[in-house]
């Protein structure tokens, strides 16, 4: 069983009203895209964010990744909108 930490930033943090949470993943959830699908099942706000209606970037352990990236036990996964610094 995999335990991961999930962080949310900016518009996404405000929408879901979480900044961080610990999640125990079901055995079949082992990629970023599978995690997004799991989160989208939580309700309307989550479905809007995580079912591809909006662009949501992902990082694992501080590295930008694409949706097919595999998850490992202990990973820190972050979801955020496209960046707007500078």
């Amino acid at each position, binding site marked *: 069983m995999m335990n991961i930490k999930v962080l949310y930033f900016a518009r996404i943090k405000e929408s879901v009203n979480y900044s961080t949470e610990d999640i125990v993943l079901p055995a079949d959830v082992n990629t970023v895209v599978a995690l997004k699908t799991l989160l989208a099942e939580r309700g309307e706000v989550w479905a809007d964010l995580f079912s591809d209606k909006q662009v949501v970037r992902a990082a694992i352990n*501080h590295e930008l990744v694409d949706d097919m990236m595999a998850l490992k036990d202990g990973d820190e996964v*972050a979801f*955020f909108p496209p*960046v*707007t*610094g*500078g």
Partner: protein
Amino acid sequence: MTVRVQTEDFDVGAELAAMRLASKDIGALVNFVGQVRDMNDGDVVSTLTLEHYPGMTERSLESIEVEAKSRWNIVDSLIIHRVGTLQPLDQIVLVAVTSAHRGEAFKACEFIMDYLKTRAPFWKKEATADGERWVEAKISDDDAQGRWANAIDKPVSDK
């Protein structure tokens, strides 16, 4: 190579003097300073608040500097980026690059800014008369970064 993410303002003159005087093989110093505008998308902006992802921010900026140094023969680079709540005319970001000759420093400085705009985890929220709103990412910033993808030492659009 240096990265600083901070709420405090910075002294461009002092930062540039320190970089310029660091080595006698430096012949060029190029820098970019970004500041808060009072208008965006047709609305008056009273304040701009920058959120970031502590840890990943520093790591992504460091990797952008490493990438710039691998592409061009530069001596040193500096990125200072502010977070927190800022007002029009406040400085947001400083990028500075030193090299023996100007060409390398010009290109590396622009490259660092273009990558920072699309890869470093900062998000801007602006306050207007209608309330607060998150700033949307711009396609033109992706295009600016994309110019460098196939280029060894110059934007594709320069050829």
